[in-house]
């Protein structure tokens, strides 16, 4: 049985001038103990979807089931406080007038009557889980941002809810702390095995934490799949572009067979990853990841090799980010930190056929129609 089932969810609201559709026909099926991520740019509807699951927003239409029980539909509305959830907010939402203990104890005190000792031991367990037990007597306002976020996670888990909802919990932390919290979040989630819905705009977080990702755009789910699928097999220009920096080269399919796909582009012929859906003659885009492009000073032996000139060369520590002009097109590439080419150098850009993903141009251009398609297919 799925932990959360979202069916045809729509959420519209009226502003002064027009009606905005924040969530448009979203259908999702989230399994027990999954770490499910809603990924997308701001305004794509991911947070609204999460808030609908929490009951903090009421959908205009559609329904949500949690654990087999309808929590919202045309005829039913279970208010937030009756849903079996724990939620972590982007801005922590730690109550400043309560101590750390009181913050975490709140969900226990508010609901069923529990014995004082029972509450204390559960709070301690929850704080232990997030490595915060030594701060139990502090005032919440004396905590740093990272500690507040841990506290907020302990508060969400203390009721032992069926579902954990995370609304960009890492985005207010600084880079180092974010990385650390990322690993911890995953460890805790695996340890207690709780169905988790995670909202983020950060592709690294999404790819590293999730069991499954739904990429959203304009209120719709554009692609749904494992992190590997999302990254390696984007189904649209939008996904390829949003998840990782991608350069696109436009072209037309020359040959397509189960083991070869050749495109004619402005740069020359491209040997790409085979795709039976691409028929000869179809106009298409080649999506190239910076890290799959190898920059050399002599022509390489790869499937594709093009001569170009370095436009921009930025040393970023773990590597060198290049912008390379190939036949009038700017391609982004990531090179090794050891050997750096300078702007103006003549170089060769090499790419293996398997790293060159082809997207159909008509499909790639309109994520909108695609979103509907995916939603329907899913349904």
């Amino acid at each position, binding site marked *: 049985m799925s932990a959360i089932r979202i069916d045809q969810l729509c959420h519209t*609201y009226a502003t002064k001038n027009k009606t905005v559709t924040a969530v448009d026909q979203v259908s999702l099926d989230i399994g027990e103990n999954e770490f499910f991520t809603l990924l997308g740019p701001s305004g794509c509807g991911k947070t609204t979807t999460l808030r609908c699951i*929490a*009951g*903090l927003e*009421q959908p205009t239409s559609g329904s949500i089931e949690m*654990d*087999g*029980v*309808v*929590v*919202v539909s*045309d*005829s*039913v*509305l*279970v*208010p*937030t*406080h*009756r*849903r079996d*959830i*724990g*939620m972590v*907010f*982007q*801005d*922590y*939402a*730690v*109550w*400043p*007038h309560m101590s750390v203990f009181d913050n975490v104890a*709140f*969900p226990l005190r*508010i*609901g069923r009557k529990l014995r004082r000792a029972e509450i204390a031991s559960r709070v301690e*367990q*929850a704080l*232990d*889980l997030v490595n915060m037990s030594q701060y139990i007597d502090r005032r919440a306002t004396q905590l740093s941002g990272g500690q507040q976020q841990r506290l*907020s996670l302990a*508060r*969400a*888990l*203390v*009721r*032992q*809810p*069926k579902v954990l*909802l995370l609304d960009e919990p890492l985005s207010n932390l600084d880079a180092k702390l974010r990385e650390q919290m990322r690993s911890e979040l995953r460890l805790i989630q695996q*340890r*207690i*095995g*709780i169905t988790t819905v995670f909202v983020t705009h950060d592709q690294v977080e999404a790819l590293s934490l999730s069991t499954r990702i739904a990429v959203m755009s304009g209120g719709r789910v554009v692609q749904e799949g494992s992190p590997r699928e999302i990254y390696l097999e984007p189904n649209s220009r939008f996904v390829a572009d949003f998840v990782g920096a991608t350069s696109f080269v436009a072209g037309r399919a020359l040959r397509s067979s189960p083991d070869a796909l050749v495109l004619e582009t402005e740069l020359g012929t491209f040997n790409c990853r085979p795709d039976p859906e691409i028929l000869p003659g179809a106009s298409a885009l080649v999506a190239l990841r910076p890290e799959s492009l190898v920059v050399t000073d002599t022509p390489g032996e790869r499937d594709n090799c093009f001569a170009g000139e370095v436009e921009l060369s930025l040393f970023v520590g773990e590597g060198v980010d290049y912008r390379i002009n190939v036949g009038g097109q700017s391609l982004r590439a990531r090179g090794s930190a050891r050997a750096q080419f300078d702007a103006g150098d003549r170089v060769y850009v090499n790419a293996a056929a398997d790293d060159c993903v082809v997207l159909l141009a008509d499909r790639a251009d309109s994520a909108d129609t695609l979103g509907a398609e995916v939603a329907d297919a899913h349904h």
Partner: protein
Amino acid sequence: MTELRVDTRPAQPPTAPPAAVRRRRRLTVHGAINIITVLVLVYLVIGPILMLLLSSFEDTRAGVRIRPPFPWSSANFTGVLGDSQTYRVLGTTVVFAAAGLLFAFTVSLVFAWLVERTDLPARGLVYVLLVAPTGMPGLISAIAWGLLLNPTNGYVNVALHNVFGLHGSGPLNAYSLPAMIFVQGLALVPLTFLLITASMRNMSVSLEDAARTSGAGPWTILRKVSLPLLRPVLIGAGIYQFVTVIEAVDVPLVLGLPGHVTVFSTQVYRVTHPAFGLPDYGASSTYGILLLTLAVAPLLIYNRTVRRAQDFATVTGKAFRPRRQRLGRWRWVAFGASMLYAAVSFVLPLLVLIYASLEPYIGSISVSSLQHMTLAGYRKTLSTDLFVSSLGHTLVVGLTASFAAMLLSVLLSWIIVRSKSRFAWMADVLAFIPHAIPGVVIGLAVLLIYLLLPVPLYGTVWIIVVAMATQYISLGTRLTTGGIAQIQQGLEEAAQASGARASQVWRHVLLPLLRPVLLNGFLLVFLATIKNLTLPLMLQSSDNVVLSTLIWDRWDYGDVTGAAVLSVILTAVTVTAALVLRRLSGNGEQI
């Protein structure tokens, strides 16, 4: 180590739908409270306006009718608008208000600049002394100035006579328009000063530095940068104070009536409470409508300014302490001027009141008169039943009206800030309107309503409570709206997501976080209610005398000592309350 495990929980019965399942958009308790709040507000705010319109468009010679058939008539308007006295009153009101504001703003700007931007000595003391008169009710400072500048035996006039060997009345006359302007101007200074200093303090000095590094001189910076940045607060405070001036009856009553200087507020009072004959409610309502119009016009501009104030959002930026202008040898001149102003505006009136309360007769101050000083006035005044009951009434009115106003305010603010209701704008408008209705008009309208409605409030203290609550909802919501807006919505949502019902969210999260704001607002409204003369006077009967009406009654009757005794006591209470308030909130800028 024990782990938090979802799967270790006792097996739950197979999924039965939660008990809370209900139809979407069904009325929740919270929703019901919202609707009731808005309805109460509509009754409190719109009711009086409708009442006023009704009685001004009726032929009220046989009384006001609230049921059909309505005796529609335009006689009130033709009568009032055809009367040349109306235009004289209008002219006097405008001159009184404009000159009072000009005085107050000039003084406030100069002192605000001295305190915030110069190396004036003892800036803290000057600040406190300028703000201190907030505690002194307008009625009392008017009485004090009446004692000082009475043309025949005012202390200042007597002193001038003695020094310069003058005879006859004067040279200064408390019962004239210039004196009214002066006293009203003084009364306006504390709040104006507070608003301007707060705004100056928050103004990012880097904006002025940017102008300086662009090659602008001090004068250009003042004209092109500083004053334009202050414009929103100057316009906002100006219009707010304009309503304060035209709605109040205290100064015009004490200083205007003896010299036959009439403004709109006293005109409404006089027509509603004539010395002889029956009140003409039709005419007073018509005057009320005119006064309302006069108040609303600038408030519409105020509203637009407030909205536009976001354009000046940079003003709130936190920055370095501003560099202070060196005054050089003018330093001590400026300090002397500040002390002189404090002496004239606060210390002198206070001393005169204390002196008058200890003197059996009013006269010049001399060694012999000082020997006659006695506490007999206190004994006599404080032992009367009227004093005891008026003190009780004052407390009842103050406490209940403040409580009611803050309760309505916080509920209303929640609707304004948080609810996604389509009707949230209505709450916003309802909270704003009482600010635009001059107190004397609220008093008149509330009087009419309870004269006619079969609700036994007329003549009791509760009618004053209703009027006060109505009047101070604007003040209350301004504080509570700010307070709620400062609480991240996530704090409420986190409580909901933790399983808290709406009532639990209020009890455990919102109210504790709002406590400072609510306490501050409660005290602020409490202070305002006990200082208020206008509403109790408009609604007075023999059974609901409060301290402020008692003071006016004693003064009007000619019992100067009694009025002074009561004034000293009331001032002691209000100044203390003001000090507590400042200590609690750390600032009085929200007034």
